[in-house]
Structures are given as structure tokens and as C-alpha cells.
């Protein structure tokens, strides 16, 4: 409503053609450019039993470079979703600083914000209004991407989990962000949908960064450039996917040493 009154609406992501790079200009962007995330001495912990604290990360210094698609690995309960939320700014961390360059998305795959009584289209329009995007363009994009057909005008509560994931992914892909935070969403749905997600990442969102938490190894190989591993209160980045997956496998075998004090 207000976006319409204001008259200046942002287009849906990926519809503005990128300017061709000037001849001779370096193709690689600087690692700290738009879409990068820098951790400076970041510590995040939860209170656990017996008055001790469970550390998710401790004094973490790291740079997620701009324009890279990074897979975030770690076994269940290690704090991947918490990491996503502290990067998006929804949750607080104990100390240090997270410097996000550019606009961060909300953790995608999060369909909890969709109202069960509102239709898919109404929910999409709400997200468009909140982010100042033209509501009709948003609905067009979502109906094209999610292939929900007539279901788009049905209440969200009637959706199956695959349909929910398709709507959630479609809505968030329409909003232009510099860095997309993807939480497990792409492992839902059939193969066709997963291929479509991978293709979207490589073409339309080529210039954006992404940090995605997933367990699907084949997907990591097809979608990501780097691997970050969260293990035992430490976050480490591996530029080579093969090396990262090796470390991840080794971590899975060794029992988690509790580091409480």
C-alpha cells in the first residue's frame, strides 16, 4: 500500500541486467566487497546444565568472501541455525563484532513467518511490502518460480511441506540481497525443484554471496565454492570443497569433546 503511494519500488531481484564489466577491469571483486561477512572475535554461547555454558563459537575471526557460495557444515545441534540467525541480525551474540557488508537476507527456508490463514499470494505480498518491492511483480515471480499454480490462492495451512519450501524459497529469491542465508530449504522437495534452486544460484544470483546450511553432499558439490565447518566451538573455512568434506567426515567420526568452562 505504502510502496504504491511512494511510487519508488525496487524491482524483483535479478531483473535488472548487470552492467558489462569494462574491458581490462579485474573480474574478481575484492574479498571484503558487498556481500562479505567478517567475524571479529565473535563469541556466542548458551547456558547449559549445571550453570555451565555451551560455546557455539569462541573468539572467532573469519572472513566469508564476497560473491562466494559457502556451505556451512556441522553435525546436528552444533548451532548452524543459531549462526544463521546471528549473521542475519535476528539474534544477539555475546561479544565481538559481525561486520556485514550489504543487505543480509533472513534465514531462508524459514516459512514460520507465513500466516497459516493467509494465501500464498497474500503472504508473498506481505514480504514484498515489508521490503519495498512491487507486490504484483513479487506475485508474478513467485508463481513462476514455485509452480504452485492454483494453490497460490489457497490458505498456507493447506500446503504440503514441499510446497511450503517452494513458496519460501521463491519469495526470498525475489528480494534483492547481497548475501543469502539458506537454512536447509533446498534439501526439501523433489529433484526438479532442487535443480531449479541450484540453477537460480548460478545464474540470477551470480553476483550475490550465499551461506547455506545443508547435509546434502551432492548439493554442496553442485552449488557451493567453499566449505565452512562449525565444530567444537570453532568455525573454520576451507577454500577447497574436497578438503572441507574430508575434515567434516573426520569430525563426524570423532566424538564431540565437551569444552565447557
Amino acid at each position, binding site marked *: 500500500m505504502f510502496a504504491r503511494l511512494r511510487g519508488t519500488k525496487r524491482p524483483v531481484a535479478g531483473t535488472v541486467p548487470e552492467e558489462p564489466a569494462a574491458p581490462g577491469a579485474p573480474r574478481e571483486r575484492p574479498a571484503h566487497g558487498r556481500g562479505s561477512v567478517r567475524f571479529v572475535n565473535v563469541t556466542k554461547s548458551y547456558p547449559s546444565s549445571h550453570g555451565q555454558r555451551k560455546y557455539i563459537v569462541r573468539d572467532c575471526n573469519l572472513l566469508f568472501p564476497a560473491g562466494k557460495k559457502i556451505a556451512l557444515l556441522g553435525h546436528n545441534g552444533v548451532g548452524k541455525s543459531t549462526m544463521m540467525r546471528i549473521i542475519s541480525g535476528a539474534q544477539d551474540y555475546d561479544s565481538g563484532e559481525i561486520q556485514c557488508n550489504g543487505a543480509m537476507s533472513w534465514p531462508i527456508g524459514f516459512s514460520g513467518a507465513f500466516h497459516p490463514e493467509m494465501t500464498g499470494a*497474500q503472504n508473498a505480498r506481505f514480504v514484498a*511490502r515489508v521490503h*519495498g518491492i512491487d507486490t504484483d511483480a513479487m506475485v508474478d515471480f513467485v508463481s513462476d518460480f514455485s509452480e504452485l499454480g492454483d494453490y497460490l490462492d489457497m490458505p498456507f495451512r493447506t500446503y504440503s511441506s514441499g510446497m511450503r519450501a517452494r513458496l519460501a524459497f521463491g519469495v526470498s529469491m525475489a528480494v534483492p540481497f547481497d548475501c543469502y542465508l539458506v537454512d536447509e530449504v533446498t534439501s526439501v522437495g523433489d529433484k526438479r525443484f532442487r535443480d531449479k534452486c541450484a540453477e537460480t544460484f548460478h545464474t540470477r544470483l551470480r553476483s550475490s554471496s550465499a551461506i547455506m546450511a545443508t547435509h546434502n553432499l551432492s548439493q554442496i558439490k553442485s552449488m557451493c565454492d567453499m566449505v565452512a565447518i562449525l565444530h567444537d566451538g570453532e568455525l573454520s573455512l576451507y577454500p577447497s570443497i574436497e578438503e572441507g568434506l574430508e575434515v567434516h567426515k573426520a569430525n563426524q567420526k570423532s566424538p564431540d569433546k565437551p569444552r565447557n568452562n
Partner: protein
Amino acid sequence: MSLLNSFARMPRVVGALILREMATTYGKSPGGYLWAVLEPTLGIMVMALGFSLLVRTPPVGDNFMLFYATGLLPFSMYMDLSNKISGSITFSRQLLAYPSVTFIDAILARFLLNALMQMLVFYIILGGIIVIFQPEMIMNISQIALALSLIMYLALGIGLFNCFMFSYYPLYRQLWGIATRPLLICSGVFFTYDSLPPALQDWLWFNPILQIVGLMREGVYFQYDASYVSLSYIILFASVPALAGLFFLRRYYRVILYEM
């Protein structure tokens, strides 16, 4: 540009939240909006009928409906608004995961929509009583507007403080419920401040709702004088919890959302 954007962001987000709440709360059943008007109307009618059997005339004027409406409408306005605001973080919990929605947006949207709704209810009921019964009256519109804005400000202040306290100390919610149960009786809905014995007057004077009801009656009845009201007391009573609530919510709302 980014400064301009952040100014444009707030009305845009608040507008989207208001549309969403309208579609999901009131729009669910066709009687949704109607019920918001009917509920206080029926309350006033029952009260007026009951008391008209007991006493010959209301404490001020000669119309029972008008007298109880001037008391019950501000009171229910306060109750509804402060309850809605104190629940706004829980109500918009999921939406606060969007980085572009802040807790201020969530609270502001709830306050604006429900204040507008309550104003409409007030206008319809008071207007209806005046049209149907045509009591002899000289209204002081600015006094009525003052009373309405004060009751909304008070509801906002208490609501902000409780929004933090209810989520952070669940026991406080129980205690608050018990402590405010007699509020309907001691807010001057059924009587006027002047008709009370002095011992009670000394105590009940500290109830800001009773003072605002007095202001409202001064605006509606030309023969009623509410010189006991202290505007600065009411404003102070609302501002202190409002500031405290804002301060603690700003510091702790992320903790409330994910770690409580």
C-alpha cells in the same frame, strides 16, 4: 539515499503489518468488525439496565447509557490497547526474523490499528447514544480529545512495560492479573470521584484511569467539574513505564525471541 530509505522503511513496514493484522484478526469472520462495536455496546446496555432498576438517576445527568458509556468506553479502551501492546512481541514473533522488521514496527503497528479501531468504536457508540436519546448536553470536544489521547498514551506506556515484563518474568503476569482484577470497580465507571468518602478518595486518586474518566465526563457533561485531576500526574504515570519498557525491550528483545 540510505538515510531516505530508512525513513521510508518505517511507514512501509508498519503499513504492511497493519494490513496483515487487519486481514488475519478482524477479517476472519464477517462479524469481526461488528463484534468490536457490539461487545462494549452490550456491556453498557446491561449496566445501564441493571442500575436503572436500582437507582432513580445516574450520578451525573439523567441518561444511564450516557453515564456508563463515558466510564466504560475509556476503561475498555485502556484494557484492550494495553493488552494488545503487551502481547505484540509474541504476536509478531515470527515476523521479527525478517531483518527489516524491528520490534518498534511491531508495537507501533499494533498500537495504531487498535487505537484507530477503539476510536471508531467510541465514535459510533457515543454518537449512537446522542442520536437515539438526544440528551441535553454541551460537549467540550477538546476536553474529550484530551481524555482520549491520555488514555491511549497510558495504555501505550503500561503496555510497553508489560510487554517486556510478561516475557521476561512469567510470574509477573500472574501477579499483574491478580493486582489489576479490581480495576473495573475502582476506576470510576459506576460512580464519580466526588461521591466517594474522603478516606477512599485519598487512595483512589492515585488511579490514573479514574482521573481520565473524570476528564472524559467533564468534557461530556457541562455540569461536571473534574478539578481533582492532575494532568502532570497522568503523563508521568504513563511516561515512566513507557521509557523503561522501551529501554529494556531494546536491550532484551532478541533474548526474549530466541533464548527464553
